[in-house]
């Protein structure tokens, strides 16, 4: 039995899975308020189920929106600590890729693009069998398009993820052809659970995968005051 959570992007989801079966799941799209929604959702998904009966807990570690990622990881680490169960991290990029239908992705290079709330997007390329072709990165859409336009890349392109439209515009501007997947634009907790089921247990708890360093802006005269 696996409990999986995601709140790294524009939504929250939680799922309780056993083998291939989804016992309970909930998902909700939202831009803000992950910290209010996630734990009540977990409680409902776990209704009638003891945390001690979980084999593992799984969570998306990012890349995504900093606050949402931390809600997911703080919740998952708290659940794992209090339940004494192991915690597995899955990236948002691989979770979105894994939700692309196997027929749809056959023979394609799957490019997952996610919103970073900045000028760049979070991106990772996967082979049709979902093995990663390159590390996850935060890059500008036009740079990604330039690289894909270089000679050598010949596979059909299949775009997925919440920033697929942004990337699609940049690819079109380069005259590249591509298809856009019907898969969900953000991670789905049931897919996160499926991915986590076969992963080896990590020796240290999953850490957030930010990809962006903290934006450090110093107010005039030094550090700012706390809000009153």
């Amino acid at each position, binding site marked *: 039995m696996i409990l999986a959570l995601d709140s790294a992007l524009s939504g929250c989801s939680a799922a309780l899975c056993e083998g291939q079966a989804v016992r309970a799941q909930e998902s909700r799209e939202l831009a803000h*308020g992950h*910290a*209010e*929604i*996630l*734990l*009540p959702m*977990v*409680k409902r998904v*776990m209704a009638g189920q003891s*945390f001690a009966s979980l084999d593992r807990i799984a969570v998306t570690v990012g890349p995504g929106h*900093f*606050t949402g990622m*931390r*809600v997911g*990881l*703080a*919740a*998952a*680490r*708290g*659940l*794992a*600590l*209090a*339940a004494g169960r192991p915690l597995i991290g899955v990236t948002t990029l691989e979770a979105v890729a894994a939700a692309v239908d196997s027929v749809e992705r056959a023979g394609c290079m799957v490019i997952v693009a996610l919103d970073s709330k900045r000028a760049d997007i979070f991106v990772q390329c996967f082979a049709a069998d979902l093995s990663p072709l390159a590390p996850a990165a935060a890059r500008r859409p036009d740079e990604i398009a330039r690289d894909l336009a270089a000679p050598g890349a010949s596979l059909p392109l299949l775009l997925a993820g919440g920033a697929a439209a942004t990337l699609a515009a940049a690819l079109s501007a380069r005259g590249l052809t591509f298809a856009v997947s019907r898969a969900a634009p953000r991670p789905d907790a049931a897919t996160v659970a499926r991915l986590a089921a076969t992963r080896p247990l990590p020796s240290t*708890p999953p*850490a*957030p995968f*930010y990809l962006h360093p*903290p*934006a*450090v802006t*110093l*107010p005039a*005269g*030094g*550090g*700012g*005051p*706390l*809000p*009153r």
Partner: protein
Amino acid sequence: MYQVGCTAAKALAPTAGTRYSLAAMNVLGIETSCDETAAAVVNDRRERLSDLVLSQTALHAVYGGIVPEIAARAHLDHLDTLIARALGEARLGWADIAAVAATGGPGLIGGVIVGATMAKAIAVVREIPFLAINHLEGHALSARLSDDVAFPYLLLLVSGGHCQLLIVEGVGGYLRLGTTIDDAVGEAFDKTAKLLGLPYPGGPAIERAAASGDATRFALPRPLKGRPGCDFSFAGLKTAVRQLVEGAGSSPPTARDVADVAASFQAAVADVLVDRTTNAIAAFKRRYPDGAVLVTAGGVAANQALRDRLSDLARRHGLLLVAPPPRLCTDNAAMIAWAGVERLRLGLVDSLDFAPRPRWPLDPTARA
């Protein structure tokens, strides 16, 4: 549903023969609203079974102030292990914890979200109440943890983010008499320290430097001193220090100069706090003629020179000054756990959909 009433009532009822009769009610506290990651276990017998604070000062020092995103990341990196250590040091297991209390605001929201979310997760798994604590209420009630002070009392809350005078009438009952109209007092300490080239955080650095300084060498302003009311202002004092330091020319100030500016600044702050608190004592006595205690709390209340001045002030007005030990004045989780004990006793628990609050006045009727 939470078994809130149940848990609290069982733990509190001293019914002979039940397994709860001798058991203390232990509350886990979590504090992540600024640059200290903290976890503690406190019980309803006012015992601090563990009280851990992991300071992020070194992470922020290079920036001369707290960087919210760096703070939020550090809280997430360390909080779960710190909680496990807090339980271990208290020699307790999860089954011994009656409730989990976390700072729900006010503060740097990224950090508050980490602490409150982890607390909610623990509450869900252990099926115990979750309490979202106002950080200021943590400070306000800390004197009841350290010294068992009875309500009502007058409170001077002085910290990096706040400077307020309140009458504490009970748990959740706060009447604000005055607040700062510009900077918090701790902020004035930090900025003065920075101007003098002293390390961050500024409070302890100023206090050390001031110890050997001449407080009468520089005549710094005492904003609002002598005026009616209980509000504070520190912007003018900060500006005066800047003009003083910058007016001294390009050569770095000598150790003597630094000590004298620090001492003069600290004396000005003390004069202002004493003046405004004098007005607050009058207001407190009007409302509660038998009121007997002045409490000071918050990080700036760790300053011994200020404590001495306030102690003297209280004595002159027939009050007792209670200042929790410095460890309980600076940010900590024991005060959050204790506020949790106080609220749990009254059944004031929170729902799992509690929204962390960047701003959260203690007295909701007070003007902004």
